[in-house]
């Protein structure tokens, strides 16, 4: 398809949330902001996440087969922004955000309002610019309902096109 501005504009009309994905790979804990996320099944409960190939988070998820997805709330755009860049990892924090390891061994940020813990069941498009992980939900939590999730379109950022 020709890469016209129209195609870019239309692809940016799709609606996305913002999420912080975490995982622990051979290189240690990793976190990244992602938006290409969708539920993929009710029974069993599955989600689908597209992660850019070659990134630390993609490598960690591929190696560990596990990841957490933190919902970014409407009032937390800075939480999302913290993970656009390469992480600064310390003993108990990633890029200055403290976390606790869950029973499944996944970093859950202390400020998270809601999250899912996932185990990869399938990987597709491994050779593409994004790997597609289909994952079973093995845990979840909600700290402070009611929550309004941050929509990508309510931010200054976009990812699509």
């Amino acid at each position: 398809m020709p890469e016209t501005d129209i195609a870019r504009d239309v692809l940016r009309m799709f609606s996305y949330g913002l999420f912080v994905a975490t995982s622990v790979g051979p290189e240690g804990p990793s976190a990244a902001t992602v938006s290409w996320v969708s539920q993929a099944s009710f029974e069993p409960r599955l989600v689908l996440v597209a992660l850019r190939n070659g990134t630390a988070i993609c490598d960690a998820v591929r190696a560990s087969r596990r990841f957490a997805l933190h919902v970014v709330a409407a009032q937390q755009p800075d939480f999302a922004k913290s993970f656009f860049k390469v992480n600064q990892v310390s003993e108990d924090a990633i890029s200055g955000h403290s976390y606790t390891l869950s029973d499944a061994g996944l970093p859950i940020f202390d400020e998270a309002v809601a999250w899912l813990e996932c185990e990869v069941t399938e990987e597709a498009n491994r050779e593409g610019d994004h790997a597609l992980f289909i994952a079973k939900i093995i845990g979840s939590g909600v700290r402070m309902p009611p929550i309004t999730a941050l929509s990508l379109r309510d931010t200054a950022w976009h990812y699509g096109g």
Partner: protein
Amino acid sequence: MTEGSITDVRIDALRLLSNGLYVLTACVSDEIHAAAISWVSQASFHPPLLLAALRRNSHLANAVRHAHRFAINILEADQVELAGAFLDHVRLSATEGTLAGHAFRVSGAHCPLLTDAQAWVECRLAAELPNPGDHALMLGEVTGTGVRRSGMPLLLRDTPWHYGGLTTE
């Protein structure tokens, strides 16, 4: 927390995924199929790929499998009523004038496009991904797009409906 700790669907994290609401259409020979869908995401920049999750054994999934093509019609924030016309699967002959009361045209690539939608994407079915769940994952390569207006797209959370979480109820 464990899976079992989800006791209230109103605070289910899966309801916080910020889905849109779209109308997927496909044309199998002279029969048009259409239904509202919500589980959609871009999946690649180069080539531009879109993923749409459709109930595995639905008429819609079967129509996409046979047509090898589908269109996603993007609705505007004030088109809740239009979306409502497609909550149930709609099937009709391509010779009929309207789709659930809404004008459409069949594109050169044989995809039905709702005239009132603000934008549309046409896809070639590139693959159906392995999915152990209850939905078929249709990976479409974008072959055409169009914009009629550039309004605010409809979000599922701004409608009376939801699709996500523990159940469809």
